[in-house]
């Protein structure tokens, strides 16, 4: 892999389900050692975007445009066989639903070892030793005993950590983590986030992390992509996104969260209306039926334009977003 090449480059990716463009022109770049957060509400297209990287889209969904490159190689043009060599080795993925993505018939330890045996050709004793060590690092106490258990014998949080251990064990070039800590308690979450930071430091892994938790974004990410209605509406360095959001959705989203040092018991900011179901977005800017700045201009799709260093937003009125205090 060429060092100058970004590890992941998605360009203009489009995905359709039943005629609706549920992912519409999404571009995301992640370089070695960078953590990119993909943020947005339920149904906005985060998981589909992530799944499309390794061509793991559900049957109902069609990849209708764009390219995905891994270190300069076009993944979207690879054969199934070539892709299988990439999965679990160069690219690891932590799925949103741990129970569904673990093999119910395989012991936890075997699932963690699998990638090592498959891609690294380790013997079973050595693979087991590394698996136990990794399970301990993701906060599983009594890892030796747990390794012998089947998924149904473990709690949801435990399954989640088994999957995280399985994903991290090959020190992948790219880690895709879909809501990796949403099901976990904050004290365990803190351990997992430390581990991800560690991986990027020691192995130079590029990480694409999907979350709806702005605290996790602030804690972990270098760069942030905010998604709404299947489109990236704003992207930029984490500090710029939090300090000077330039899309009304980003600005309002940040303002709705109760702060640990904010005033108590006062009304929080709200975003009017409901999160629209796929395919029921308005024409033009898909946020405009909930946006306080919307006017006639917004009936045309706003392009992503640069508003600062590496900072882009898709809003006709990005200069007025600061008014939405």
């Amino acid at each position, binding site marked *: 892999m060429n060092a100058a090449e970004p590890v992941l480059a998605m360009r203009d990716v489009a995905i359709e389900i039943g005629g609706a463009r549920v992912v519409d022109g999404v571009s995301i770049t992640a370089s070695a050692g960078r953590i990119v957060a993909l943020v947005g*509400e339920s149904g906005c297209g985060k998981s589909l975007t992530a799944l499309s990287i390794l061509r793991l889209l559900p049957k109902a969904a069609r990849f209708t445009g764009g390219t995905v490159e891994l270190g300069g190689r076009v993944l979207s043009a690879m054969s199934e066989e070539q892709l299988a060599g990439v999965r679990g080795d160069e690219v690891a993925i932590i799925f949103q639903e741990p129970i569904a993505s673990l093999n119910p018939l395989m012991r936890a330890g075997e699932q963690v070892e699998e990638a090592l045996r498959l891609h690294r050709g380790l013997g079973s004793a050595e693979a087991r030793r590394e698996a136990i060590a990794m399970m301990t690092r993701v906060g599983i106490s009594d890892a030796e005993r747990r390794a012998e258990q089947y998924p149904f014998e473990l709690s949801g949080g435990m399954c989640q950590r088994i999957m995280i251990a399985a994903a991290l064990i090959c020190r992948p070039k790219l880690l895709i983590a879909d809501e990796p800590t949403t099901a976990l*308690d*904050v*004290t365990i979450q803190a351990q997992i*986030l430390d581990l991800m930071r560690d991986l990027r430091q020691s192995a130079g892994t590029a990480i694409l992390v999907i979350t709806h938790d702005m605290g996790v974004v*602030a*804690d972990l990410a270098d760069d942030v992509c905010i998604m709404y209605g299947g489109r990236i509406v704003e992207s930029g360095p984490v500090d710029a996104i939090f300090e000077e959001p330039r899309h009304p959705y980003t600005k309002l989203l940040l303002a*709705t969260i109760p702060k640990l040092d904010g005033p108590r018991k006062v009304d*929080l900011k*709200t975003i009017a209306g409901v999160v629209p179901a796929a395919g029921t977005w308005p024409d033009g800017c898909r946020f405009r039926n909930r946006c306080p700045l919307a006017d006639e201009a917004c009936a045309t799709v706003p392009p992503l334009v640069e508003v600062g260093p590496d900072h882009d937003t898709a809003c006709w009125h990005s200069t007025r977003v600061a008014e939405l205090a």
Partner: protein
Amino acid sequence: MALAESPQPLLQVRDLKVHFPLRGAHKDATVKAVDGISFDVPAGRTVAIVGESGCGKSTTAYAVLGLEKPTSGQVLFDGRDITHLRGRDRQALASEMQIVFQDPSAALDPKMTIGDSVAEPLAIAGRPRQERRRRVAELLDRVGLSQTFAARLPNALSGGQRQRVVIARALALSPRLLVLDEPVSALDVSIRSQILNLLLELQRDLGLTYLFISHDLSVVRHIADDALVLYLGTIAERGPVDALFEAPRHPYTQALLSAIPLPDPARQRRRERIVLKGELPSALDPPVGCPFIGRCPISIDRCARVRPPLVPCPTGTEAACHVRAPADGGVVGL
């Protein structure tokens, strides 16, 4: 003139224990889901129960509502012992206390219209049709839903709208106490603040009392007056929210607070985090002494032998910790 006395709390929980006997492979074992907790909920206030998954939050709520049978201890409502009320007597309490569950989709019958769902408690209480219709209109208005929703089915509503319906139904019989078990956890971020605002507004307007369960400490700090931090079925620390968040004394509360990532990258980078080792031990086999001992960074010998009592701290909370809140007031160890 009558002496000023502090009014009786609406809800009092005294040394509550809920143990589940286990059958099968673990014969004779018991899960000590709730293991001796006491607290008051004053009328018109919000008391929150926080803690990690499996610490006993929901079980406590269910025992208060009579949905789970306490092993020992007492639940007093308005001074009256309701611990063992069952059947018709318990039913009569429906007009005093109601629960709102986490998942609004599971809480609504998919084949029942919104109007019928909201009217259900009124129908069970035998209120006449005319009154039911009027009350449903009132309730929908109260929770910010237009009247057109009455004729719809739940699948035509968003998650936030469904939670409004569930809240409307809980309010139908004008209860004084609402038990809210993770009421916003299943909702989208942009919808959460709408529901939190609604809960605050209802409390202001109707003088409601809330027992509010959540694992989200930012939400708890925002909405509650007092909070209990549970660990393995016992109270690690409790107190007014201000004191608890600004000057926590229990090492678990401190670790929990330090682990919440702040939505502020600059501050988050400067923060010191207390990293706990290990994980929540099982309620199947809790330690003899302090429940927190397996993960505690400051434990002393005594912690393994004696369960620490809740002791008032000068900082305004009560903590159960031999080191941070010694019973004799002196400083042990350190």
